[in-house]
C-alpha cells in the first residue's frame, strides 16, 4: 500500500515521465476533463488504484503510506494529473485530515483514520462555515460540550461541499464560550456522519448541481477521542494547515482552459475579424501568460526549498479574477446566445459558455474571499 522508493531521488524529468505514463495507462478515459466535481461512486476504482500504487497521498510522509514528495516533485505530480484531465476526487481526507492528524493526532487516531483514508472507507467533508460565521469564521457558534466521555454537539454548518457524498466531517466547534478571544475557544472535532442527530440537506447551487450542503447537528454525541490536539487550539491548528499548497489556487490551468473555450467560441462566431474583440482577447491572453510567470516564481521558491509567505494570496486574486473576466467575455461575445443555460453547439464545436461563467463565480468566494485576501495583503504585506 505504499510506494517503497524515495521518488524525490529521481530526476525531475524521470519522475514526470513515470507519473505521466502511469496516469495515462490507468486513469479511466471517460473521466478525463470531468465537467463537475466528481462523486466518490464515480471514481472509486481510480481511488483504489492510486491507493494500491501508493500514490494516493503525495505529500504525506512515507511512514504514513504517503509518497513524501517534496514541494517541487509535488508540483510536477499535480501538473501531470491536470495535464491528463484527472478529476479532483473527494480529497478532503487526503488534503486536510491526513496532514492534520499527522501533525497533531494521537497514535491511535493516526492508525485508525489514516488507514481508512487509504482504504477509501472514510470520505471527509469540511465543516467550518456556519450561517453566521463565514468570513468572520472565528465567530462560529456550533458548540461541543463535554459530558462524560463524549462531546455533545449542537449547531449548524453550511456550504459544506459534498457532505452528502461524505462519511465523516471534520469541524471547528466552540468548546469555550468565555475565552478571552473568540479564536481561543475553538476545537477541532472529527465526527462520523452516521451519528444520530445529524441531518444533511443539499443546497442546489446556481448551476443546479447538488454540490454543497447544510449540516444540522442536534445533540450529536461524539467520543472525546475524536478531538484533535488540545482543546481550544483548533484555530491555531487550522491556520497551521495552510501550507505551501496555497500556491495551487494560483495555478493558471483554469484560466488556460477558459481562454481556450473563449478562442473556440470566437472562432465559431468569426469574432477575430473584430479588432475590438481581438484587442480584449489579447489582453486576456497576456493576463494568463503573466499569471503563469508569477506561478512559476512561487513554484521555483518551493523547488529550491524556500518558504511561501502570505504574499502568495495575490496569485489567488489574479487567477480567479482573470478566470472570471474570461468567462464574462464569453457571455458578452455570445450575444443572443449569452442567455442559454446549456452548452452551445456551434458547427462542430461545443462550448460551455454558461457552465464556465457560473462555474467561475464561487472561486472568488471560497477559500477566503478575494476581499478577505485583499485585507490580508494590505495588512501583512503592505503593512497598512
Amino acid at each position, binding site marked *: 500500500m505504499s510506494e517503497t522508493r524515495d521518488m524525490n531521488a529521481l530526476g525531475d524529468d524521470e519522475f514526470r515521465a513515470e507519473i505521466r505514463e502511469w496516469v495515462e495507462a490507468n486513469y479511466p478515459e471517460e473521466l478525463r476533463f470531468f465537467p463537475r466535481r466528481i462523486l466518490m461512486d464515480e471514481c472509486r476504482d481510480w481511488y483504489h488504484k492510486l491507493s494500491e500504487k501508493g500514490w494516493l497521498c503525495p505529500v504525506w510522509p512515507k511512514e504514513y503510506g504517503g509518497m513524501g514528495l517534496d514541494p517541487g516533485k509535488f508540483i510536477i505530480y499535480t501538473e501531470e494529473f491536470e495535464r491528463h484531465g484527472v478529476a479532483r476526487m473527494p480529497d478532503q481526507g487526503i488534503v486536510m485530515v491526513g496532514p492534520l492528524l499527522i501533525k497533531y493526532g494521537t497514535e491511535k487516531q493516526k492508525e485508525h483514520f489514516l488507514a481508512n483514508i487509504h482504504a477509501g472507507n472514510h470520505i471527509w467533508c469540511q465543516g467550518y462555515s456556519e450561517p453566521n460565521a463565514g468570513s468572520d469564521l472565528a465567530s462560529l457558534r456550533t458548540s461541543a460540550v463535554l459530558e462524560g466521555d463524549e462531546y455533545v454537539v449542537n449547531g449548524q454548518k453550511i456550504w459544506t461541499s459534498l457532505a452528502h457524498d461524505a462519511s465523516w466531517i471534520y469541524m471547528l466547534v466552540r468548546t469555550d464560550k468565555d475565552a478571552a478571544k473568540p479564536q481561543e475557544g475553538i476545537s477541532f472535532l472529527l465526527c462520523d456522519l452516521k451519528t444520530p442527530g445529524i441531518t444533511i440537506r443539499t443546497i442546489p447551487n446556481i448551476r443546479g448541481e447538488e454540490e454543497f450542503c447544510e449540516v444540522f447537528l442536534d445533540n450529536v454525541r461524539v467520543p472525546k477521542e475524536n478531538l484533535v490536539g488540545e482543546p481550544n487550539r483548533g484555530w491555531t491548528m487550522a491556520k497551521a494547515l495552510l501550507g505551501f499548497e496555497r500556491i495551487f489556487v494560483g495555478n493558471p490551468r483554469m484560466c*488556460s482552459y477558459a481562454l481556450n473555450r473563449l478562442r473556440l467560441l470566437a472562432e465559431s462566431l468569426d469574432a477575430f475579424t473584430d479588432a475590438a474583440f481581438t*484587442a480584449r482577447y*489579447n489582453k486576456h491572453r497576456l493576463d494568463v501568460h*503573466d499569471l503563469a510567470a508569477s506561478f512559476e516564481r512561487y513554484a521555483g521558491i518551493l523547488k529550491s526549498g*524556500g518558504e511561501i509567505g502570505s504574499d*502568495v494570496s495575490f496569485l489567488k486574486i489574479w487567477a480567479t479574477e482573470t478566470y472570471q473576466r474570461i468567462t464574462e467575455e464569453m457571455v458578452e461575445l455570445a450575444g443572443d446566445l449569452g442567455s442559454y443555460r446549456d452548452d452551445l453547439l456551434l458547427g462542430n464545436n461545443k462550448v460551455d459558455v454558461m457552465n464556465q461563467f457560473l462555474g467561475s463565480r464561487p472561486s472568488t468566494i471560497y477559500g477566503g474571499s478575494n476581499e478577505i485576501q485583499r*485585507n490580508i495583503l494590505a495588512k501583512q504585506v503592505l503593512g*497598512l
Partner: protein
Amino acid sequence: MPSNNSDQNDTQRMLQDSARAFVSRSGGVDGARERRSLPAAFDRETWQTMAENGWFGLLLPEEQGGLGLGFAEAAVVIEELGRVVAPEPFVSAIVLAGAVLRDGDNPDLCNEKIENLISGSVIPALAWQEAANVYDPAAITTRAVPADGGFLISGTKKFIPAAAGADAFIVSAMGPDGLALYWVAADAKGLGLSSDRAVDETDIGTLTLDGVSVAKDQVLVAKDTAAIMARAIDEARVCAAAELVGVMKEAFDITLAYVKQREQFGRPVGKFQALQHRLVDLWIQQELSRDVLGQAVQCFDSSDDVANRASEASAAKARCSEAGLLIGRQSIQLHGGIGYTDAYHIGMYLKRALVLSAWLGNADMHRKRFADVAPEVAA
C-alpha cells in the same frame, strides 16, 4: 511573513549596492530632476561615473572587452536608475546601440566603438525609426548611395532618445546591398538635429541627413542587418521594462509611505479599506510586472530563439508599460493635491512611465505583437 524569495546572486547584490550608492551620490531624485535642465537633458559627468562603475560593459561579451554578464544583472542596475528617474540614456545608448555594435560584421570598427562605449568617452544613439508606430527596421526610406568610394546618406530619423547628448549616430539606411548601419559623427556635414522635449524633460531628437558623406570603412553592419536590429530592439524593450519596474516600485513605495502618514478624519488615510484594496491591486500589477520581466530576462539570458525572445519581450513591455502608467496615475490620485504639484516628485514617475511606455511600442502595440508571435497553447 513574506516568501523568502531572494533570488539574487552575489554579483546581482553587488551591482544593486553599487547602483544604490551611485544614485544617492548623484543626488537621488532631486539630482536626477536637476540634470534634466542641462542642454543635453542629462549629465556627462554622471555618465562618466556610471562608466567607471563598469556598467556599460555588463551585457557585452568578454572578447569585446565587456563583462559578459546577462540581462538579470543589467536589470538590477536599470531598475535602480528607474527608481530615481535618472535621465541618463542607459537603455538607448548602452543596451540598444551596444547590441548592434556587438553583433556587427565589421569587427575592427565595432570593437573600437565598443571600447569607447564602455569607457563612456563616446555616446552613440541608434537612429533608425522614421515613422511613428512603425517598428520594422527595414521599413525605411533613408538611402545610402555609393559615392567616391564611400556613401552619401539622405533621409530623416525620428524618436531618437537623448539625441542632443549623442557624440555619434548609428544610422540605418538602404545601401547598395540592402539595409546597413553606418557610423555618423554628430558633427558630420549635412547632418541636422532638432530636439523636442519629452514630458519627462528628456530629449527626443529628429535627425535629418542631407547627403552626409560616410567613408566605406564606417559601415558597422551590412549583413543580416534587420535581424541584428530586431534583436537589439527586443533587448532594449526588456531593459525598458526593467526601468519601468524600477519606476513603478519607487512610485508605489512613495505612495504607500504617504498613505500611512497622511491623516484625515482622525486617522491615516491608508486605514480606509477602499484605499487598502486599491493599493493591493496596484501591488498585484507590480508583482505581475516583476514576474513577467523575470521570465523575459531568463529567456534572454538562456535562449537565442527569435520568436521566443520576441514574445517574451512583448509580454514584458506590455505589462510593465500598462502597470507603470496605472501606478503612476494612481500614485498622484492617492496623494491628493500635493500629487499634482511640480515640486513634489511623484508626478515625475508618471511622466517617466509615459516616456518609457511609449518608447519602442506601448502596451497596446505589444499585446498585438504578442498575439502575432506567440503560438496559442492547447488546453
